[in-house]
């Protein structure tokens, strides 16, 4: 598999999860997956399981915290929430993306003007 592509995909997933937790508050893995599915309608065709790998990695980095709790239908579930460090990371990443997309936009415009 193309390594670059999977790295970009992974980074995107990390960012989406952080944003989801930032916007919606603590969620369990299933909730996160549903939200991402909603937002990325058919554009991001990934296996839902990868959410858990991303959650684990981000936990290790200290951007996400996990706690066992009870879900809506009274089942035991692990709830994930964004930490302060995670909020900062989200901000940094968002700025990065804006900067990159800005540059690409300008480059593409150059091509068009020719």
């Amino acid at each position, binding site marked *: 598999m193309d390594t670059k592509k999977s790295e970009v995909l992974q980074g995107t997933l990390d960012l989406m999860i952080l944003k989801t937790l930032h916007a919606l508050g603590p969620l369990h*893995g299933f909730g996160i997956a549903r939200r991402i599915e909603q937002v990325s309608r058919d554009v991001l065709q990934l296996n*839902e*399981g*990868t959410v*858990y*790998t991303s959650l*684990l990695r981000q936990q*290790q*980095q200290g951007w996400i915290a996990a706690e066992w709790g009870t879900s809506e239908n009274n089942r035991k579930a*692990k709830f994930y929430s964004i930490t302060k460090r995670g909020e900062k990371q989200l901000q940094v990443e968002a700025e990065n993306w804006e900067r990159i997309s800005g540059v690409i936009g300008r480059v593409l415009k150059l091509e068009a003007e020719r």
Partner: protein
Amino acid sequence: MSARRESRLRAFAAKVRGFLRGRKRDGEFNDEIQEHLQLLAEKFVAQGMSREEAAAAARRQFGNVTLLQEDRRALQGFLFFEALWQDLRLSLRIILKSPGFTATAVLTLALGIGANTTIFSWIHGVLLNPLPGAGEPHRIVELESLAPSGEWVPTS
């Protein structure tokens, strides 16, 4: 500290903790995944699928669970020790499964080691340590006298 180095240190610390916690994490992670698969299947059932279709569709959408467990273990442990432990378990299983082969191998090894040890003991006794009873053999000297013929003759 650079962000990159800090994140690697963090990942390392998490690995140490994960390694020390061990088996418990496997079970918890599996529970979480199974719960997710369950919820996903229920969602499909609500959309009109049969139970079997829903379960299969849930597994397909979720992806490979075994790979996920491996990824998790890779993130949370030291690959070297995990691999070593797995190799030891496999070896033990193979050894117990074919007793004939094991017996032959053990006998061969025993013979080889025994022969080596014996021969070395002989050499050690004869060549390297020729004076039993001597406390410090390296301090023993041989006294010779010069005979009128010009030869060195042992003193006695």
